[in-house]
């Protein structure tokens, strides 16, 4: 297989349970390079858990998960699977950016420091160059003028945009968004979605857990509807949203659209 054909994310029959509570039941899906996948579904359907498995914030109990052709969290030698050392797992995560519902910015650091922190600690590059790059990223999300603000002095939408810039600072090849606009006031949702749209247009591979069906229709290459830990329906977003095949999908969409 040539490099271009290796999917960015490939999940093969992933299962995950907390004790006896099975939250993911044999999920299989694929995200190609440069593709945007939107995961929708009712809360508790397992979509956030699935997202967190992709960068090994949660461990899976069964199945296989690859990011860019590499097994996530494990190493395979022959037919044996070895648990990864935390350091290796950390290294793997550097290529995967993640944006959280509650932003999780570091409150004791300014916007610029938030963006610069990981590259400064890990790449040990020239500080001036890192700072220029961090400022560029802040400019990209429209917040260059707020670089010396602490998160507490930024609006929710601004915080989330800083969080996106922070995730981009590690130059990831994949971006995960866990309900990035769910904690925002309605009037602030647009600015965050605009940044995400720009990111998608620049060719970033993205997996977005969201309730914004308008965004999914406009930006996503594929829409996956999950419920009860399984993929109920997936396909072209417009197709799924306007002409859902399954009863469960219809019922859900009738409530959110």
């Amino acid at each position: 297989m040539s490099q271009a054909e290796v999917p960015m994310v490939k999940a093969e029959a992933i299962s995950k349970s907390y004790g006896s509570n099975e939250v993911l039941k044999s999920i299989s899906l694929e995200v190609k390079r440069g593709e945007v996948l939107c995961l929708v579904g009712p809360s508790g359907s397992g979509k956030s858990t699935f997202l967190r498995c992709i960068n090994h914030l949660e461990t899976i109990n069964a199945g296989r998960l690859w990011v860019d052709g590499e097994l996530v969290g494990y190493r395979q030698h022959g037919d044996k699977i070895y648990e990864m050392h935390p350091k290796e797992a950390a290294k793997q995560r550097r290529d995967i950016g993640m944006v959280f519902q509650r932003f999780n910015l570091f409150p004791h650091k300014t916007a610029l420091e938030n963006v610069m922190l990981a590259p400064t600690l890990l790449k040990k590059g020239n500080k001036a160059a890192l700072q220029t790059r961090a400022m560029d990223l802040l400019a990209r999300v429209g917040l260059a003028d707020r670089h010396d603000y602490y998160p507490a002095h930024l609006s929710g939408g601004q915080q989330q945009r800083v969080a996106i810039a922070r995730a981009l600072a590690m130059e990831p090849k994949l971006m995960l968004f866990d309900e990035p606009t769910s904690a925002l006031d309605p009037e602030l949702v647009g600015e965050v979605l605009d940044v995400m749209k720009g990111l998608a247009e620049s060719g970033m591979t993205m997996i977005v857990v969201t309730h914004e069906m308008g965004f999914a229709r406009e930006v996503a290459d594929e829409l996956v509807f999950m419920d009860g830990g399984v993929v109920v329906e997936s396909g072209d977003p417009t197709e799924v949203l306007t002409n859902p095949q399954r009863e469960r999908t219809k019922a859900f969409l009738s409530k959110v659209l």
Partner: protein
Amino acid sequence: MNDMQTAAAGTSSPQPRRHDEPQAIEAIKLRHPWRSVIAAVLIIIVGLFIYDALANRPVYSWDLVVKYLFDVRVLNGLWQTLQLTIYSMVIAVTLGILLAIMRLSPNPVFRAVAWAYLWVFRGTPVYVQLVFWGLMPVIYKSIKLGIPFTDIGFELITKDLFSFFVLAMIGLALNEAAYMAEIVRAGLLSVDKGQDEASIALGLGWWHTMSRIVLPQAMRVIVPPTGNEVVSMLKTTSLVIAVPYSWDLYTRTHDIGVSMYKPVPFLIVASFWYLVLTSLLMVGQYYVERYFARGVAARPEVQRPTVETSTIGVVGLSSATEAGGGYPTASDGEGGDQIVPPHGRAGGGGV
């Protein structure tokens, strides 16, 4: 997205305004006559007590208090106490952070070691521990470092290695570390789980996450009780006679007092200096707290080095409280050594 925005705009159509000019409220202030009465009664009682102590109680020997307040032996005792406090707190905080991180570490061996440490050092009285440390050079006369069952290695004589001062410092520090560990652990647990996650998702390792993300945020919770522990340590140094180390402030003043058959004035001398030091510590704590509160919206309950003076303010002493300038001061007037509590900095006591 656009649908949503227009929908949001639709629901919040502007309401017409009814009132043109809001009128300012000019209410008569609620009076609190009992506050003034209680304050007046208290001041009279305290005044009588001070008068009585100055005029009718020769046992206080105020002349001796004044004479020995700046005696070189007393000041040296003060310096020893200060050193013991600082050194043992530095060790205790460092060790406490280490123990707290160990207790929260994924490594079960670290967790067990930290737990056992806490169990022993928090579970026995500090006085008993100090006596034990004092006996160390007797119980373990020498320390041999080398390979067991061979002659390779060298030997250290314990009592040459550890003076009573060092043993006192170790004893105080190791005991305090157990308490500090719990304070630090509470601080670490107070930091939102999302912070760890964000840091880990960036690809930072456990150490970077702890040292750069979690611990700095935990400091806001850790500093106030640590200030408390420093004050407590300052006073606990008065127990080092158990080692026996006898050059600290309390033991020194006590010894002088006993040799002159006048213990009471020296209790006052010691108390005076302990109060001066704790007052200074309160000021220092304010600035440390302010530093670690950066990035967090200012909250009024961040402790300033103040005592509540509003009650006194009612009966007209507010000008006196402001004259102190904020720092705890001690007026060394003739005879009467008054300790002025640290008064309100700007915005502190003027409620």
